[in-house]
């Protein structure tokens, strides 16, 4: 058999590695910043661009898509070529993929602080960037599949399967969740409304965890852990079972983010069952990873790469134990909306993704630079800072999260809620500080790691094209005369599968979604009416400022919640909410009925509170929004927005767009007149008026007869 000579492309791997290191430090620095904003809210919230609500999405997007994303591509480009015994299909595509992804990240870093946000968690980027992501993702997928087709190794190692699953599923998730109607260049409305939007969002959100943070990294684990330990994986058979079981179970788990909400019960139960079953493949994978080191634990003591990987796999085991537990209704009832969840995701993020990435970098950089690691000692310091950082981060958050929920739920013997919400906020202060310390330790480790990586790069020379040899792939099948046409398809299952999937999905969605969803938006509660133009503009300020990062709009049917926030939320109340704003975290109180019942406050209260929250609620961690008093409301967009909402099925009258701004001014004047009575002089065309109008509207519909 002919042995072919070829070269591996290490340059693209190097590029992704450097991007991983730099974006990692950037994303974690922003993370530390948002953590400290909760400790020093008046000092570190620099409005408007660097308020918590705009910066937290920057942190999550940076660490997920920039740090973990680049790390994933680095690992895939390195291992895929070697597993398939082939150079990446096209250097041009690799280059486009790399620079395209970096441009997307830069676009995100600019647009998020500017307030361009869809206000859907982990999918905040606006529609032009969504399109760019789609294109670059296709470039990546095409490059990968073309490499698979021209491979020299017939067997697809389990890691390759994980990469394929990652590509296919993320593509589908991104397409479905990003279905939005552009209003202006940087503003769009989610095509879905209310409960529908919530379901799509968390179907996406959970699977983003599954197929962006988990499956690619499991693929990397199955390649880099055996390589670093120089031992075969404990059980290859288990890895195959692990893969197929995991991907078949994961896609159904999304509804566990919406337990006790207005989502139908059967959908909740489906989500719970699949979430619980997930513990089996997840732990199968963890055990497989750890047992790979059986008889080699002495190496773990010596080899810093393995130390990182062991902590990573252990953290994977912990968070995939916690995940199924948190999906159980009784536990979810307690933990949801609390800081417990923040600890949970950081065990996964800092532990699993972070530690595995650092371990791979320590293994890979000396290899492609044909040199030794600059300093083993610094790497060990990095390891200990990172490990301790995770503990200092997670333990205070677990503890405080539990306390926080207990305080939310506690009643006095006479049946009153024992604590004001604000008391639970001030209680959290020392724990938020401890968490920031944990984050600072982890970041310090990452910076030491960065120095170590760059010193290593400095002392070596990149082997941009690494020589390799392998025999050509033997044709397994030769076409014989008179065979059926479909044999061609059977021999090319992967591209065919992909093609048909994409075609069916796009066709199906384009046809189904508009008719289907617009019809199902017909309200089931007749008193629920569309937002007035001023409220709609106010709502867009609410989404722009990322209020959902701290405030939920979903009152669950628990006595502790209905006592505090009022009547529990009904599905029919959200039919005009493009996008939904249920939120996932209560750093501040729920706002679903902010304008109704006991929670109703005066316009003056809202004005003063938005201007300086701490002056009204001592100890509040909310940033000041005084800039809304200076900013003029852009009313030129009102007709566009009304028309967009009409397209989405919101029943405004056909010619309402042209009259909307008159109504807007009348309502705004009403609010300013009211503020005037309390001596507050403010023109009606300011953004704060629109936001107050929206807040006063929240939850009022069902109280109207």
């Amino acid at each position: 058999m002919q042995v072919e000579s070829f070269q591996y492309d290490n340059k693209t791997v190097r590029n992704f590695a450097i991007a991983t290191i730099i974006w990692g430090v950037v994303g974690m620095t922003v993370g530390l910043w948002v953590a400290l904003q909760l400790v020093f809210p008046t000092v570190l919230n620099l409005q408007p661009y660097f308020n918590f609500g705009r910066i937290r999405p920057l942190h999550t997007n940076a660490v997920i898509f920039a740090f973990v994303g680049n790390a994933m591509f680095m690992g895939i480009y390195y291992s895929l070529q070697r597993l398939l015994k082939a150079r990446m299909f096209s250097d041009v595509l690799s280059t486009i993929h790399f620079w395209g992804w970096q441009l997307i990240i830069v676009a995100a870093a600019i647009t998020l602080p500017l307030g361009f946000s869809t206000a859907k968690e982990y999918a905040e980027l606006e529609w032009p960037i969504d399109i760019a992501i789609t294109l670059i993702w296709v470039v990546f997928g095409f490059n990968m599949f073309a490499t698979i087709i021209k491979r020299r190794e017939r067997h697809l190692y389990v890691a390759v399967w994980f990469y394929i699953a990652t590509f296919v599923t993320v593509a589908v998730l991104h397409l479905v969740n990003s279905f939005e109607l552009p209003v202006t260049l940087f503003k769009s409305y989610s095509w879905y409304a209310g409960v529908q939007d919530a379901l799509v969002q968390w179907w996406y959100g959970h699977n983003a965890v599954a197929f962006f943070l988990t499956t690619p990294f499991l693929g990397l684990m199955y390649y880099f852990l055996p390589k670093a330990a120089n031992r075969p994986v404990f059980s290859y058979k288990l890895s195959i079972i692990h893969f197929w079981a995991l991907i078949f179970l994961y896609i159904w788990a999304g509804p566990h983010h919406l337990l006790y909400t207005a989502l139908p019960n059967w959908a909740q139960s489906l989500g719970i069952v699949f979430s619980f079953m997930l513990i089996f493949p997840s732990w199968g994978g963890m055990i497989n990873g750890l047992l790979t080191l059986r008889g080699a634990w002495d190496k773990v003591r010596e080899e810093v790469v393995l130390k990182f990987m062991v902590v990573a796999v252990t953290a994977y085991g912990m968070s995939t134990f916690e995940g199924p537990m948190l999906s159980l209704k009784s536990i979810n009832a307690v933990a949801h909306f609390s800081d417990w969840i923040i600890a949970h995701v950081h065990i996964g993020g800092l532990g699993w993704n972070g530690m595995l990435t650092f371990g791979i970098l320590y293994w890979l950089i000396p290899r492609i630079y044909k040199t030794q690691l600059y300093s083993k000692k610094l790497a060990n310091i990095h390891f200990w800072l990172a490990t301790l950082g995770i503990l200092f981060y997670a333990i205070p958050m677990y503890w405080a999260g539990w306390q926080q929920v207990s305080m939310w739920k506690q009643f006095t013997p006479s049946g009153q809620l024992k604590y004001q919400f604000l008391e639970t906020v001030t209680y959290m202060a020392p724990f938020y500080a401890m968490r920031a310390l944990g984050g600072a330790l982890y970041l310090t480790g990452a910076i030491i790691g960065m120095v170590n990586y760059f010193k290593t790069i400095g002392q070596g020379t990149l082997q941009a094209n690494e020589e390799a040899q392998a025999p050509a792939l033997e044709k397994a099948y030769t076409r014989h005369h008179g065979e059926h046409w479909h044999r061609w398809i059977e021999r090319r299952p992967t591209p065919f599968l992909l093609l048909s999937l994409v075609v069916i999905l796009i066709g199906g969605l384009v046809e189904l979604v508009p008719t289907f969803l617009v019809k199902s938006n017909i309200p089931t509660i007749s008193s629920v009416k569309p937002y007035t133009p001023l409220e709609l503009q106010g709502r867009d300020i609410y989404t722009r400022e990322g209020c959902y990062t701290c405030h939920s709009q979903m009152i669950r049917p628990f006595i502790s919640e209905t006592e505090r926030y009022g009547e529990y939320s009904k599905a029919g109340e959200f039919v005009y909410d493009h996008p939904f704003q249920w939120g996932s975290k209560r750093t501040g109180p729920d706002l679903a009925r902010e304008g109704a019942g006991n929670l109703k406050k005066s316009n003056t209260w809202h004005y003063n509170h938005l201007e300086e929250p701490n002056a009204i609620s001592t100890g509040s961690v909310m940033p000041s929004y005084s800039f809304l008093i200076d900013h003029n409301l852009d009313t030129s967009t009102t007709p566009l927005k009304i028309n967009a909402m009409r397209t989405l099925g919101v029943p405004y009258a056909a010619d309402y767009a042209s009259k909307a701004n008159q109504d807007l001014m009348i309502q705004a004047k009403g609010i300013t007149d009211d503020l005037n009575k309390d001596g507050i002089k403010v023109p009606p065309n300011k953004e704060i008026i629109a936001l107050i109008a929206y807040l006063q509207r929240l939850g009022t519909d069902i109280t109207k007869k």
Partner: protein
Amino acid sequence: MGVIVILIIASVLVAGGFLLAFLWSVKTGQMDDDYTPSVRILFEDELIIKKKEIL
């Protein structure tokens, strides 16, 4: 709750796609050997370079 139908269609398509891939992989013998692939990935690149030096 119309959107559930769309999500189920999308999820079933993904799952169905994986099912086809699984059947294909079984049929073409991808799963026949459940030991050597784990060892094979450990033998790589560096060896080839040494061989070249000898030549």
